[in-house]
């Protein structure tokens, strides 16, 4: 089964071909460009560069606990979830339950979006549908712990009206992504 083999390979095989190589370089190019921006800023306005670094440090301190949580979460998922199970809940043919799971998980998930990418990649390698990933990422616009704050700023009625629309939009994004992916599969 191909899905299984994909997961087994991801331990760090360097020879995964051109695409993987390009992706790795892309990471580094990005980091180097940002560091270059910092150097520029440091040259023209050292104080701002220092403040930006301070803000960066604060963000890191905030996300470290969430990263630890993500590692534990990833390890547990890796341990308990066989690709077959993933395929059953969020894979092809997962149906309404899959959408419900993805959107609920998006609403519950904490922390910045980018720390979830590695986990989502793993899940997709194990058979999670792209549409559900898109729905997950969209439904993150609803954050339960932040709802009181949203009510404080924009009023209860606004929040009550906005939330169902966000859920509907998550479904639409997911469905369209799925349509496009299916068409791509047919062409290939």
């Amino acid at each position, binding site marked *: 089964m191909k899905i299984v083999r994909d997961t087994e390979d991801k331990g760090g095989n360097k020879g995964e071909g051109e695409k993987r190589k390009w992706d790795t370089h892309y990471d580094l190019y990005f980091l180097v460009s940002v560091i270059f921006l910092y150097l520029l800023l440091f040259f023209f306005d050292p104080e701002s560069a220092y403040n930006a670094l301070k803000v960066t440090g604060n963000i890191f301190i905030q996300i470290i606990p969430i990263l630890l949580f993500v590692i534990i979460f990833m390890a547990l998922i890796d341990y308990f979830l066989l690709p077959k199970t993933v395929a059953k809940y969020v894979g092809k043919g997962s149906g309404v339950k899959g959408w419900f799971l993805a959107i609920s998980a998006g609403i519950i998930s904490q922390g910045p979006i980018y720390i979830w990418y590695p986990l989502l990649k793993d899940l997709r390698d194990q058979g999670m549908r*792209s549409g559900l990933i898109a729905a997950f990422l*969209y439904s993150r616009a609803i954050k339960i712990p932040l709802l009181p704050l949203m009510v404080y700023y924009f009023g209860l009625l606004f929040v009550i009206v906005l939330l169902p629309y966000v859920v509907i939009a998550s479904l639409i994004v997911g469905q369209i992504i799925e349509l496009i992916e299916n068409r791509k599969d047919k062409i290939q």
Partner: protein
Amino acid sequence: MIDPKHKGGEKSKSIAMSFYRAFKSLGSALPMLAGVVLLLGLLLICVPKQFIASVFTGELFRDTVIGSAIGSISAGNPITSYIIGGELMKGGVSLFAITAFIVTWVTVGIVQFPAEAAFLGRRFALIRNSLSFILAILVAIATVTTLVAIQ
């Protein structure tokens, strides 16, 4: 040392191995994470809130698109977007623009686009972000129209 490649059968899973893989997976994400957070720090310092407020014109649809665009570029804790949105509302910016702004803040990420592309594929990231951008405008229109209809 544990060799992650030894697993021939499906039964070779152990919890230590799972943690090893999780660390490895996140470890390979570190350069990208570092880049995104550094860029966020830079943007938060260099783009003042007053600048954001001065961008809105008062024309509804244009403001909504602008709100959507600014929310797409910015990222970070949604709390920040509520605070900025609250400030903008006090400054007389329309609720259409503010709604689009707080929705794209989370759903569209220009700053983290490279990370999304690296993990989930450039094609996926491109389609998802474009769709989310358009949908945020629709969500804003639907929300505010409904609000006006109820009140």
